[in-house]
């Protein structure tokens, strides 16, 4: 086999292994879906009235919210990548892989790809949940598909960050929190739940340039969902070129973290 086909074949085999793992652990899917559904309900009905304001509460806010929840959920799924690697390290499975004549890159790409299976399942469940509370796709089918792909691309990029974190954490216990902790600033200092224009000072600048904001805004556009009436429209280059910026930053994240994670994998010691 040439080296390129070996990389592809190895990646396929590792992806298969990780997908079987998800399939044999339906409780992971349960955890990955129940949590975001609770978020939808919490934001839609508990915070929604206050955030949406007198002019824009209720339905309009719920429609604004869904793209944010989608993006946040798949972003949080990168913690499964972190824990997956930490587990494989602890159980000696990474040692086994490293002693085999296989592609180093395949071990990581097989994991980051398989973890998107989880994201796809969760997005289906969340879409049904969104439809139930009044969210609708207002644009074309093509745009809607592109919207989902945008979210998945961003999730895939974050999964590479997760791979790197998983390979540098010293234990599964640390991986549990290390995988989640950076998710809170990343997903909340953004346009996922509130208009980014409403944030004060430096937080607004961060939110404007946060790739997560771009992914949310681009998806919202592609779904044809608009801000509640009376809300300021996001402005500035990242907001006006949300899709482009989201794609560029996703590729940049992969370009940085794929070599980092692969280099780390080559040297990683078992625990």
């Amino acid at each position: 086999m040439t080296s390129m086909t070996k990389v592809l074949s190895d990646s396929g085999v590792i992806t298969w292994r990780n997908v079987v793992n998800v399939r044999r652990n339906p409780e992971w899917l349960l955890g990955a879906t129940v949590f975001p559904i609770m978020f939808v309900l919490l934001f839609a009905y508990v915070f929604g009235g206050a955030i949406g304001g007198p002019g824009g509460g209720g339905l309009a806010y719920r429609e604004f919210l869904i793209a944010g929840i989608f993006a946040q959920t798949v972003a949080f799924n990168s913690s499964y990548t972190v824990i997956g690697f930490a587990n494989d390290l602890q159980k000696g499975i990474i040692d086994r892989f490293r002693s085999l004549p296989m592609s180093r890159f395949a071990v990581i790409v097989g994991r980051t790809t398989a973890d998107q299976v989880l994201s796809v399942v969760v997005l289906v469940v969340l879409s049904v949940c969104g439809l139930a509370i009044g969210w609708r796709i207002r644009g074309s089918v093509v745009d809607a598909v592109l919207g989902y792909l945008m979210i998945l691309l961003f999730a895939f990029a974050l999964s590479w960050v997760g791979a790197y974190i998983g390979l540098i954490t010293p234990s599964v216990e640390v991986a549990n929190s290390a995988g989640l902790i950076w998710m809170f600033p990343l997903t909340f200092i953004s346009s996922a739940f509130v208009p980014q224009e409403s944030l004060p000072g430096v937080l607004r600048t961060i939110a404007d340039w946060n790739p997560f904001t771009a992914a949310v805004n681009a998806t919202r556009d592609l779904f044809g969902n608009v801000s509640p009436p009376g809300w300021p429209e996001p402005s500035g280059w990242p907001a006006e070129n949300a899709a482009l910026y989201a794609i560029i930053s996703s590729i940049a994240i992969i370009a940085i973290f794929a070599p980092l994670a692969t280099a780390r994998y080559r040297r990683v010691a078992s625990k």
Partner: protein
Amino acid sequence: MSDTDKGVAVRARGLVKNYGMTRALDGVDLEIPTGQVLGLLGPNGAGKTTTVRILTTLLRPDSGEAEVAGHDVLTDPDGVRRSIGLSGQYAAVDENLTGFENLYLVARLYGQRKAQARRRSRELLARFRLDEAADRPAKGYSGGMRRRLDLAGALVGSPSVVVLDEPTTGLDPRGRIEMWEVIEQLVATGATVLLTTQYLEEADRLADSVVVIDRGKVIAEGTPDELKNQSGGERLELVVGSAEELPLAMRVLGEIGSGEPTVDGRARRVDVLVDTGTKALVEALRRLDAQNVVVQDAGLHRPTLDDVFLSLTGRGTGEEVPS
């Protein structure tokens, strides 16, 4: 195994590895002739696993060189990986996969085609008596079954060199004996095996030669028999029928043995170090019989490898190395 030169499957010279300020390996040399089993023996923290990790390309040495199946671990790690099978200290089994899926995964990663991978996996499952549990997730396997599955994984690629890092640590006695039988079968197929162990009994049973390491250094090497002889050879032990016969027995043993006999009056037992083994035993019995001494019990006691370790390092194998 045509890629080995001059019949040496594994050769390491001057391996040094530091972890921070700790010197884990301090110039380890090893050589395993093709088709032989080398037992790498030492207590916890002696450097066994570090040596294994270097030889299996998981770790780069700070200095020194090593060749496995004719491939240099530093310049041709993929060549090494194609020729070896590693079964680690902790069974590297994916417990969500079935036994079959675990082996199929490894077979595919060795580059086998689907049909071949399937055939090879089933074959190994049968050989390791895992065929009944083959299609159940490994989660439900016993410790011994997991180890066997892990060892099967190491053999999927029909490697010329098999590395077993503490294959029986943590197994119950039954699991240990089962594992030994499996390893003996493996040896019978002509594979070269590097086996690390803290159990001297295990090295004695499985290894053609033994390298004892302690604190990152090789402190002794040879066949298990040579090592035992090094630590004082065999003891001849006799129990006589009555206390009056003890002085006579002592005199005879003093003539035959290579040292001063010691006596235990209460047990009417005399023993002495001997160089000539069974010959000395026969000679002692013949002379005592000629003098009508009643010998109730007689035997040759070889030192265990535990005695060897104690005489080499001044401490037992169970004691931790102070760090």
